[in-house]
């Protein structure tokens, strides 16, 4: 028989983990799911300056998608995302491959490629704003060296400014992708390289046909990381161009912040954040699903 003291103790230790998880539970339910539900709810109301409860159906969404600025922000995030993700993946992979050739000073080079990742996007945005500023940065420097026709003014060009922002984001984030890829490459079986050498397969061929497919999970991780960064892009735009020239570098996150805190149209802003939420969930669910199943099978 279990004595009453023992069962008391048993009860206490069974309860303790639940008590310890109460803050987590509250944060998840109130601050994540609760605020999220509230935001989605408000997107179906006619809230302007203050949140109100008059249900208007999809009117805010209709207005949102008739706002030229929102459509431009979506277009920009697609351009920015494509440029940023492709450049980070290609450069990250190539740098990792080059670093993986038993080079001297690997540690120093790795640190140099990665250090921008330690910096705030505010810092990154400001520095690149100066370097790309045509009256002051690279263009001016090249002209003063004698190339008087040299032109590099993406940041002031309506159609190219979003790619100037992508350069700054690339500088900040590509080192991280290099590290992820390098970790992936180091996990490739060394026997594979020996076998490929014996068979006389050219190195680039091995990378292209064998190593890249092996790295698929690593690349998936890198893609998810980059994609989340793209959807969250805000700081770098504020620091670099403040959305300009005009609305040339506006992004959904900035659109929402402006309509929340300056333009006082909460309903519209919340419709925008609900769309962003949907995009993230569509990107994330397959990834979490695969991660989650992997973890389950390990137990």
């Amino acid at each position, binding site marked *: 028989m279990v004595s009453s003291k023992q069962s008391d103790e048993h009860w206490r230790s069974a309860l303790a983990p639940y008590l*310890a998880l109460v803050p987590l539970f509250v944060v998840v339910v109130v601050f994540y799911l609760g605020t999220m539900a509230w935001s989605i709810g408000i997107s179906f109301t006619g809230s302007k300056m203050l949140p109100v409860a008059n249900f208007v159906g999809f009117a805010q969404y209709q207005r949102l998608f008739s706002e030229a600025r929102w459509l431009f922000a979506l277009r920009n995030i697609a351009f920015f995302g494509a440029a940023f993700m492709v450049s980070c993946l290609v450069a990250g992979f*190539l740098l990792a491959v080059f670093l993986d050739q038993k080079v001297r000073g690997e540690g120093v080079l790795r640190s140099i490629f990665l250090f921008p990742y330690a910096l705030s996007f505010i810092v990154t945005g*400001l520095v690149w704003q*100066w370097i790309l500023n045509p009256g002051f940065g690279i263009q001016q420097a090249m002209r003063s060296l004698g190339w008087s026709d040299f032109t590099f003014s993406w940041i002031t060009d309506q159609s190219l400014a979003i790619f100037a922002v992508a350069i700054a984001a690339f500088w900040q984030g590509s080192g991280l992708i290099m590290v992820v890829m390098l970790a992936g490459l180091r996990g490739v079986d060394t026997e594979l390289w020996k076998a490929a050498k014996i068979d006389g397969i050219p190195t680039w061929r091995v990378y292209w046909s064998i190593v890249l497919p092996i790295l698929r999970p690593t690349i998936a991780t890198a893609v998810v990381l980059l994609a989340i960064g793209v959807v969250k892009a805000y700081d770098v735009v504020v620091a670099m161009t403040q959305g300009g020239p005009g609305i040339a570098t506006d992004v959904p996150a900035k659109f929402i912040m402006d309509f929340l805190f300056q333009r006082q149209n909460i309903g519209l802003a919340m419709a925008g954040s609900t769309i*962003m939420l949907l995009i993230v969930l569509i990107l994330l669910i397959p990834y979490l699903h695969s991660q989650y199943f992997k973890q389950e099978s390990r137990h």
Partner: protein
Amino acid sequence: MSEDSTFSWGRLGIYAVLIAAAAFYLLPLYVMVVTSLKTMPEIRDGNLFALPHAPSLDAWRKAWTTACTGLACDGIQVGFRNSVNIVLPSVLVSIFVGALNGYALVFWNPRGGVWLFCALLVGAFVPYQVFIYPLTKMLAATGLFKTLSGLVFVHTIFGMPIMTMLFRNYFSSLPVELFNAARVDGAGFLAIFFQVMLPLSTPIIIVAVIMQVTGIWNDFLFGLVFGSGEGVPMTVQLNNIVNSTTGEREYNVNMAATILTSLVPLVVYLMSGKYFVRGIAAGAVKG
């Protein structure tokens, strides 16, 4: 065999590419440092990449003590103090909570724990714009809006997903026999946490500290929304200094302020070396 010569040409190519890449990554840092040491006339007439004629620390002094951020002209040192006051408690609390959560989830296997964890992951991935407005309302209702404690609170609750994830993964890699042995010895929930698990957690705590210090120091969005006029972090002050529309743009002061703002994460990065890489790899693999 001709392979020898192609081999060395290949090596040369590898180094050429790596050195060119290194130059690209270092260039902005070089521009920051060089410009911060120049005078304004020299900047206006000269070349962005040229070395300063007579290096001077005047711009640094001005950035630190008298540069104007909005209405106040006390330099970026105010923001530095704010950032320190925000980072210290946020880092301590979020790591402690994350470690406790990870420990409870892994070893005590509470019912519904997996669901709770999955819901928590939402906080790590969803854009903060989804949460921000209702959060400002909640903090306003409790009097925490635009206070330092409010900002610390926000950093703590949004640090929980990544910290819980980090410690959950770490604790799952420890042998469960450790936990079982402590239980057989009669140790309770908190005793096992403080006497067995935390002492074993040094490597992951280092990683967590690096991630949180750099992450919270570099934050802009939360500081902007939840910080008060004088209580804003350094990143917000820096943006105010640089993007203020009054007067001539003092590039040397701006760049000195930029370097000052990035000093803490840079020092953390340089001092922690391989831990930083490990932390990023660990954080990267799981999100």
